């Protein structure tokens, strides 16, 4: 009897392994192996020849090059990280706000939801690249395109700054808000998935809790902070991590790593760059994950 049960369990675990076999194969051959390879590459000089490639160990030279010799890598890296640091709170705030908005009952809600998720469909590097090249073509110069994009919002920023600083907000905060307003399109278009995640979380909050709160005399403001926010908070962590990872895909650093590898053919330097980048992002993720998971409410 006992032996029979054990063998059943054994069978189950074999079956489980069978289910994950495709992934496991992929993981070993197409993820773990390249990952180890790229560590190896970052410490070598890689020369591609028709029959394959040869590696010569160079120690830390590639890292040294990336950090201290290359003229632009440091700047591009800090800019990308800084952009991410600025964007994450904005995207998070906006997506929680929109999800709360879309979760309320009003006429036309279905249409509004369809529109709010449209950016998930349309977010594409190819399209934005084509759009930018169209503009560059029009103006003849990439910096002019950036300026155009900034003035294109047709919005008088100065008056906004004046009003906000008159209220007595610190200037750095005013700066942040104005920046958020100027980049509203970017923020809206990159928060589709996050809105979706928050919305799903909001839907899973039991309605009875709000009823109780209402009977007890809580205002909408109170019930948001005391009920909605704590129950949604685990998903804030998910969303922060998703947003950080998502901001990789089209960032300037990624492009730089790509061109270093495939345009200048310096594969070792490119691998070193991408590992510096990976380490920095991992450190950020660990810190953010640690800080947030301490404050998150789990029921």
């Amino acid at each position, binding site marked *: 009897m006992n032996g029979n049960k054990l063998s059943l369990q054994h069978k189950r675990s074999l*079956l489980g392994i069978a289910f994950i076999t495709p992934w496991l194969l992929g993981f070993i051959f197409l993820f773990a192996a390249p990952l180890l390879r*790229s560590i190896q590459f970052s410490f070598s000089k890689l020369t591609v020849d028709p029959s394959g490639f040869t590696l010569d160990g160079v120690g830390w030279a590639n890292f040294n090059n990336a950090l201290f010799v290359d003229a632009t890598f440091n700047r591009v890296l800090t800019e990308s990280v800084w952009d991410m640091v600025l964007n994450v709170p904005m995207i998070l705030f906006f997506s929680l706000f929109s999800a709360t908005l879309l979760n309320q009952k009003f006429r036309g809600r279905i249409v509004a939801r369809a529109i709010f998720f449209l950016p998930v*469909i349309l977010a594409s590097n190819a399209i934005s690249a084509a759009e930018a090249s169209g503009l560059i073509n029009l103006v003849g110069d990439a910096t002019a395109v950036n300026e155009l994009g900034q003035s294109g919002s047709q919005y008088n920023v100065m008056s906004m700054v004046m009003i906000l600083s008159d209220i007595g907000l610190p200037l750095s905060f005013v700066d942040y808000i104005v920046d958020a307003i100027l980049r509203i399109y970017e923020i809206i278009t990159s928060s589709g998935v996050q809105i979706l995640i928050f919305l*799903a979380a909001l839907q*899973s909050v039991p309605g009875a809790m709000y009823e109780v709160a209402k009977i007890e005399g809580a205002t909408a403001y109170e019930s948001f902070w005391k009920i909605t926010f704590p129950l949604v908070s685990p998903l804030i962590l998910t969303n922060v991590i998703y947003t950080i990872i998502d901001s990789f895909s089209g960032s300037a650093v990624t492009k730089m790593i790509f061109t270093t590898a495939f345009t200048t053919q310096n594969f070792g330097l490119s691998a070193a760059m991408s590992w510096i980048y990976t380490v920095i992002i991992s450190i950020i993720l660990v810190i953010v994950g640690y800080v947030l998971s301490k404050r998150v409410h789990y029921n």
Partner: protein
Amino acid sequence: MQSPQAVRKEAQHYRIQKVRGRAVDILYALFRYALVIGISFIIIYPLLMKFSIAFKDKADIYNPTIYMIPVHFTMDNIRMAMQILDYFPLLGNTLLFVVVTTLLTTASCALAGYGFARFNFPGSNLLFALVILTLLVPTSTLMVPMYLHFRSFDILGIIHLITGKSGLNLLNTYWPSIITSATAIGLKAGLFIYIFRQFFKGMPKEIEEAALIDGAGGVKTFLRIMLPNAVSPMITVILFCFVWQYNDTFFTSLFMSELALMPTKVSSLAAQANALIPGMLGAGGGGSAVKADPNHVAMIIDTGILLAIIPLILLYLVVQRYFVESVERSGIIG
């Protein structure tokens, strides 16, 4: 006893409060509509612009009084953009490619998600942590080794043993994407495995036990009982996978830059338009000094982008309802 006056006063007070409450409600509703409509407009505006541009005649570019609706309707832009993109063969090609990879990804991720959700095998938690790791490592880190890997593709040296060559060159074939999607390691596959795992974890255990008692094996239970119930996470994953694959520039430009696929074609649209438009307008033919009007080129690019995203928008309009509902029925949260 209250005096009648006090009662009346109280009633009045109550009425005022009620009116005030109504007013606040209406104001709030108006505020909400203003917000929702405003944000929706910001999202839709570029699309509307593209539609407007697509039907605009060249003559309308320099007319500042035209805002959205063109004066001279024309199909020329669409015709030209289609010609430059080689639209219908390109679309067919891309759709076939995307459908195949989407189906493979969904299948392999559903399998893995089910395996992680319902079976305990040694190291299953560690392995699932590795799934999350695949999401966290930036794709740019794996870029060069993956490229070299597919340049001389070989598993455990088998091909080398048989043919003596150093592996197959799979670059500029569809194989890299097909292999990565079949092994659940492709585009954001970690996220899909996660979604499936959360869903299967939420399914009641009794269903499985009942199936076991009725004599269904593990595979049969999965195919006959679990999958038909997993429609909602499946729609989410299929839609995401389809859209991201269709829009992906990373893997396509890395592995398949010479194949006719929508993302690579769209990102090189500007150069193509610049080179081809003068010839199309009958000015000078290819290679002459005649340059295209940059405004006209921008117009064609916008039209081309619109042509590229229209299939996605149509798809989205069809599945949008199921998609939003499926998310609400806790596909992601679980």
